[in-house]
């Protein structure tokens, strides 16, 4: 399969810089999102209009949904959850434009996102429970603790793996299908139906990643808190 032509790659190769495309597109999306946030919050009015309205819709809806799942203490980590959702959704969707690459179609990006969630989960557990956080890993019956501990540890690492592979597999698979359909029947606009599906699955995968992060945070904060 031929190498895709990516805008930032072409621009950077004029300067003889060879940065991997998933890194450059991550930066591009970061700049884009920060820019949109700054633009939307320039004049904040009580009755929102325009860009402020759109962002209030997204952020407000997400916050209400999150508080349903994690309870009121969840508001402390809402910025992380909202960032992850919006960032992953935009990352996934940008790959559908010709000349752009989804950073999440590379396993490095998704692994780094899953590791952030993993680290934050344990940070929250230690912050709320201190040393007693270890009781989460010991299971319901103290006598069976040596049996439960390895199972719980493996379960926690499996969470990282599943988060990574789910997001990576979905987005890379979708990009691959679009590339192959383009190669096979591009003149008949064959990728178009797949693109509709891809828009839907991109947002759903971002939502699922966010939802799982929320549930892991809620799980590490609970237990006789």
């Amino acid at each position, binding site marked *: 399969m031929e190498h895709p032509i990516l805008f930032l790659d072409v621009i950077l190769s004029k300067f003889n810089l060879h940065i991997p495309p998933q890194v450059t597109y991550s930066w591009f999306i970061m700049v884009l999102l920060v820019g949109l946030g700054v633009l939307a919050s320039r004049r904040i009015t009580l009755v929102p209009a325009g860009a402020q309205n759109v962002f209030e819709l997204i952020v407000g809806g997400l916050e209400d949904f999150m508080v349903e799942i994690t309870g009121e203490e969840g508001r402390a980590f809402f910025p992380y959850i909202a960032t992850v959702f919006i960032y992953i959704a935009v990352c996934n969707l940008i790959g559908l434009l010709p000349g752009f690459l989804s950073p999440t179609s590379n396993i490095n990006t998704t692994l780094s996102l899953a590791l952030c969630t993993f680290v934050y989960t344990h940070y929250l557990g230690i912050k709320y429970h201190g040393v007693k956080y270890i009781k989460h890993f010991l299971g319901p019956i103290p006598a069976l603790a040596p049996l439960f501990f390895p199972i719980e540890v493996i379960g926690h690492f499996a969470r990282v793996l*599943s988060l990574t*592979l*789910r997001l*990576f*597999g*979905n987005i890379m*698979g979708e990009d691959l299908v679009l590339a192959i359909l383009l190669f096979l029947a591009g003149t008949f606009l064959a990728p178009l139906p797949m693109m509709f599906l891809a828009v839907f699955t991109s947002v*759903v*995968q971002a*939502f*699922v990643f966010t*939802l799982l992060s929320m549930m892991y945070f809620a799980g590490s904060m609970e237990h006789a808190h």
Partner: protein
Amino acid sequence: MKKALVIGFTMLVSMLFASLAMAAEPAGGAASGLGSFFSYAVLAAGIAIGIAAFGTGLGQGLAVKSSVEGIARNPEASGKITVTMLIGLAMIESLAIYALVVALIILYAYPMTKPIAAALGFKI
């Protein structure tokens, strides 16, 4: 009925393996012993994703069935039921994605090439 199904399935599988053995050998023997390794690898990747798609189809079908029944009983809760259904579908789908990742690893990263080549006496 069940007996006929079992016998038919056994015949199918044995014919598949027989044809495989007869087809892969001449091509493999002519080119190199490694040829049949790659053809089996390609076959493995294809069957892996086929079985994964089969299981995912069944699982997601059951999920949608239950959620549609729930909506039929209680149309007011359709918002919550739909959200829960979508989340469940994405979870089930991820199992098929794991199989896809393994199939792609087999096809594009051919991990066992060096050990098998060494075992068969080739140098790569």
